[in-house]
């Protein structure tokens, strides 16, 4: 399918996006597109998006899609079943047009609590339940200890995550979605990741320099992300099906409607690059990103974080007692890595130390979004700003919250007394979360208006 760019639909959001942006430079500056294999079969899971790997500084790393975009929307007054058919038609068109891989297009449709309130009876009966936490899988939004009071907790009905190496594919998906009259587009969030594994200048470096954001000149030339460390090493990302509700066994699927589904958290985070590069020397950047005492070669970007490198509560606590600070990765590993071997329902054995979350985060120059329907509330600005659109899949909302609390020093069974956003609290002193929302990602068979048919 090759849509005409001029048949661009979508009112205010389309108009806002049609004016061109810094992101148009991605294709001009981006250099070559990674060689990819073609994938024909659509997996039952919407969130599964298979990536190729390469080696960076001796560590296997996944090659993220160059472009990512999230479109959020609220629903107009709508006949859910009619809308369901229209949305599914669009999604089927995209399925037909593109392989579900970075060379084609990844489409993930996620639904928020406001949507499930529209189908409350069916939701009460079918939404999965986290038996480990004794909580619903899809939790109300919340702020975390390091979040400022200004962090906006959003109330979107639906979010569309689009991923591709080809910006045109994302453009075309966006056009089709904008054509759905029942969607009131609330935001468009665009970004990029990667490049640089071949030693050439990476996309984040190029784009930050082109946009002229403060600190751009301080980013390492081939850094995968603005903060200078490779975050897509294979051992640090959950394997293919581990984030499914059913895989680790602590979610009650209550009849199985959401079998193959997952939880998605979406946030936008500002990154203060100047603070990072002018106040933290390389050694402190390493211990802040990983753990006090982490060994790394000077200017090393890919620091191994395999199962044997994983830290537990006792180790993080001991490092904190000795140094008064925590590292980002080590703190999160106390909850994000398996504490024991687990066998999945399909017989797959996930060894102790395996990562659970599947991250799909990407850097951005949005401030905070490419487009916002509520510029005053979102504090929208046309001036580019360095940040990250954080997208992560976990088996449940509580599983995400455990990780996010650990990032702030709230470890399992132990709360470290870290001042929010202090330099002792890992990355938090240079990060500011502006927006948050939890979503549920149904399996592909129920991706359009889940439960509406019941």
């Amino acid at each position, binding site marked *: 399918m090759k849509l005409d760019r001029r048949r661009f639909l979508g009112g205010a959001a389309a108009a806002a996006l049609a004016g061109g942006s810094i992101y148009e430079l991605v294709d001009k500056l981006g250099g070559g597109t990674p060689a990819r294999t073609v994938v024909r079969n659509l997996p039952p899971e919407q969130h599964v998006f298979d990536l190729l790997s390469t080696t960076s500084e001796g560590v296997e790393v996944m090659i993220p899609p160059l472009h990512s975009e999230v479109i959020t929307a609220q629903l107009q007054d709508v006949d859910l079943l009619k809308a369901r058919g229209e949305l599914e038609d669009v999604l089927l068109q995209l399925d037909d047009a593109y392989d579900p891989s970075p060379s084609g297009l990844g489409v993930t449709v996620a639904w928020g609590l406001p949507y499930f309130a529209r189908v409350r009876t069916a939701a009460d009966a079918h939404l999965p339940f986290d038996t480990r936490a004794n909580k619903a899988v899809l939790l109300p939004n919340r702020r975390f200890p390091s979040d400022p009071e200004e962090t906006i907790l959003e109330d979107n009905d639906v979010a569309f995550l689009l991923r591709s190496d080809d910006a045109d594919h994302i453009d075309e998906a966006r056009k089709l979605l904008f054509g759905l009259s029942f969607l009131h587009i609330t935001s468009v969030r665009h970004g990029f990741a990667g490049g640089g594994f071949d030693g050439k200048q990476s996309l984040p470096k190029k784009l930050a320099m082109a946009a*002229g954001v*403060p600190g*751009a*000149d*301080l980013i390492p030339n081939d850094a995968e992300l603005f903060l200078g460390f490779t975050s897509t090493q294979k051992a640090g990302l959950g394997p293919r099906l581990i984030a499914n509700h059913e895989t680790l066994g602590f979610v009650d699927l209550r009849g199985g409607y959401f079998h193959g589904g997952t939880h998605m958290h979406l946030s936008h985070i500002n990154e*203060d690059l*100047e*603070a990072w*590069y*002018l*106040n*933290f*020397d*390389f050694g*402190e950047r390493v211990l802040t990103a990983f753990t006090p005492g982490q060994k790394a070669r000077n200017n090393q970007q890919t620091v191994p974080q395999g199962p044997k490198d994983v830290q537990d509560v006792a180790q993080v606590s001991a490092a904190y007692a*000795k*140094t*008064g*600070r925590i590292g980002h990765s080590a703190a999160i590993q106390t909850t994000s890595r398996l504490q024991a071997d687990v066998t999945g329902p399909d017989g797959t054995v996930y060894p102790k130390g395996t990562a659970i979350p599947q991250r799909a985060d990407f850097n951005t120059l949005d401030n905070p979004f490419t487009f916002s329907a509520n510029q005053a509330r979102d504090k929208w600005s046309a001036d580019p700003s360095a940040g990250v659109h954080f997208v992560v899949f976990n088996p449940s909302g509580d599983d995400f919250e455990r990780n996010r609390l650990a990032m702030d020093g709230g470890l399992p069974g132990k709360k470290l007394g870290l001042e929010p*956003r*202090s*330099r*002792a609290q890992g990355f938090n*002193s*240079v990060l*500011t979360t502006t927006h948050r929302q939890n979503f549920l990602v149904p399996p592909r068979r129920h991706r359009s208006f889940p439960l509406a048919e019941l």
Partner: protein
Amino acid sequence: MPETARSGVRSSFVRERAPRASEAGYIGGMRALLVAAAAALALTAASAAGGATKTTCPAAWVSGWQALANKIDAPVYCPTWMPNPLDAQIKGQYIDIYSIGKDRSYLVSFLEHGDEGSGDVHVNFRGYPGRTAIPKCPGPVAKSKPIPCFSEPVAHMTGSGIRATVYQVNQGADQWHILLAWHLGKSLYTVSEHVIPPYQFSTQVKRNLQKLLNSLVLVRPGT
């Protein structure tokens, strides 16, 4: 060593402006005076920037630098160029910190503070007579061991017969600054500038530092 911390204003963790200590000097409060004259002087100095290196400390500035050299009984470096709108007149309108430690080390700081959000222009000069080692500063968190006040060497610059090391991560009054450090005999000297609008990129600041380095002239004690 004058341990005078002056924070930057842009970081969430250094947002509070620390008190300006002054062990043996004064903090300028004369900015309202002689504005026009100083601006003219700054422009004159700026016009020399990047061009021919002056061989003497400007007449309007030399008395202060000479007094400093005499006070510490060691050579000091007088700039003949400063980033607009600053001048380098000790006791002038832009002086922010003038501090001499018991060990004769000094910190001379010039600041134009943009109250209307226009940013700051902030340049520090330091000298450590009789020592070449990089001094230690308090660590960033409570249990940290002391850390080098100047770290993350990223390049070298040459000018005025000096080969300086460019340090990107600095502490205390030089936090958020790019800093040049070099030796003269058995002494350590530095000059640094804050990375903040209107000079918001380290590349801009490095250009200014190159001009500053090119402009330095030595003022010896007792001359």
